[in-house]
């Protein structure tokens, strides 16, 4: 998705980034509008709840302002901003693991927030129910993965980024991305075995 989606607007993004670097607040505002939904969706895919996805969304743009001077090439802006968001998501997952908090379950059950869905679902009640069960299984399988494997599988298999882009975002060699993806896929496939065999 990275290249497919950004390709057409890369030139425009580079121009906005250049203006933002010069201190143009309007350009920053436009960049926020351009990326806010993608960042939110990515954070939600990683963390599975609105509260933390909201925190990631805000913090990503605050950190972007502080660290924009570190961006070497303006055309790398999408990878750069997703790198900030992914790193913050990984920090949150690690913090959560240390505190033994399962926010995903508590939020979805208690507050009624349920923002994940399966696309292309046919809105008949029976299929809706089936989709919900499948989604719960996928969510549970992804939620059990360690932070970096979770980030890799979401970025590659859901968001559609290439291994090269993921390696850039996660500051690691492509071989590590491949290995993380292979392990993560094996674990998720094991959990979804019954569904996938059908």
């Amino acid at each position: 998705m990275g290249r497919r989606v950004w390709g057409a607007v890369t030139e425009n993004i580079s121009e906005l980034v250049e203006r933002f670097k010069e201190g143009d607040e309007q350009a920053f505002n436009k960049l926020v509008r351009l990326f806010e939904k993608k960042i939110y969706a990515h954070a939600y895919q990683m963390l599975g709840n609105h509260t933390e996805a909201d925190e990631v969304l805000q913090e990503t743009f605050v950190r972007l302002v502080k660290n924009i001077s570190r961006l070497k090439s303006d055309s790398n802006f999408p990878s750069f901003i997703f790198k900030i968001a992914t790193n913050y998501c990984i920090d949150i997952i690690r913090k959560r693991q240390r505190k033994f908090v399962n926010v995903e379950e508590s939020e979805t059950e208690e507050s009624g927030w349920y923002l994940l869905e399966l696309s292309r679902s046919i809105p008949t009640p029976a299929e809706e129910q089936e989709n919900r069960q499948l989604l719960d299984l996928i969510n549970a399988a992804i939620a059990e993965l360690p932070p970096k494997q979770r980030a890799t599988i979401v970025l590659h298999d859901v968001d559609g980024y290439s291994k090269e882009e993921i390696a850039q975002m996660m500051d690691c060699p492509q071989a590590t991305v491949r290995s993380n993806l292979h392990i993560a896929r094996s674990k998720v496939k094991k959990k979804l075995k019954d569904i996938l065999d059908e």
Partner: protein
Amino acid sequence: MQEREMNETQEKLLDLGPGDLERTTPQALRAELVDAGVSPAAAALEINYLRQVSRRRVKLPPETYFADTRRKILARVDIHPRSFWDRISSILLPTYWKPIPATAAALVIAIAILTPMMYHHAPTRIVDLPALESAGPYVSMTEVYAEHVTAVDQPVLSAEELREYADILLMSTAILGSPSSLSRSRSLAGSPN
């Protein structure tokens, strides 16, 4: 040989992404993989997995939420046009220093440049020429010393006082027991023992 083939198959499967599902039908994709040497079962499993996982989508909150978040973000950041100092600091300071505010960077640079200059100009600022002239001609330290310090001809202490002083020193040395004190007290008392 067999292991290498398995690795190659695995690599091909790993290269599959949601983009491939959008590009073509699952059947066509399966045929492509089988042609590339992947077993039909492995290809079907991988395509089915990807189809299910990539369907996971986030239902976004309403637009009012994003508008509110934008306001919160703008309240937390300070964006201003780049100053001269911002540009200088971006050239001079290493990357890991860049997050520090531009004013602090400007201050560091100003101190680094001005301190040696101030040190260099210090003598010309401190020297007060009229005061130097009023002090009269140059007199060397030796001459000043010779003028004001005279040798003491007479001993300061009498023989009786020296003996008493020696006794006190010897007694204190005996109490404290320090050899260095003993030798010093003997030399002061003028005694060879």
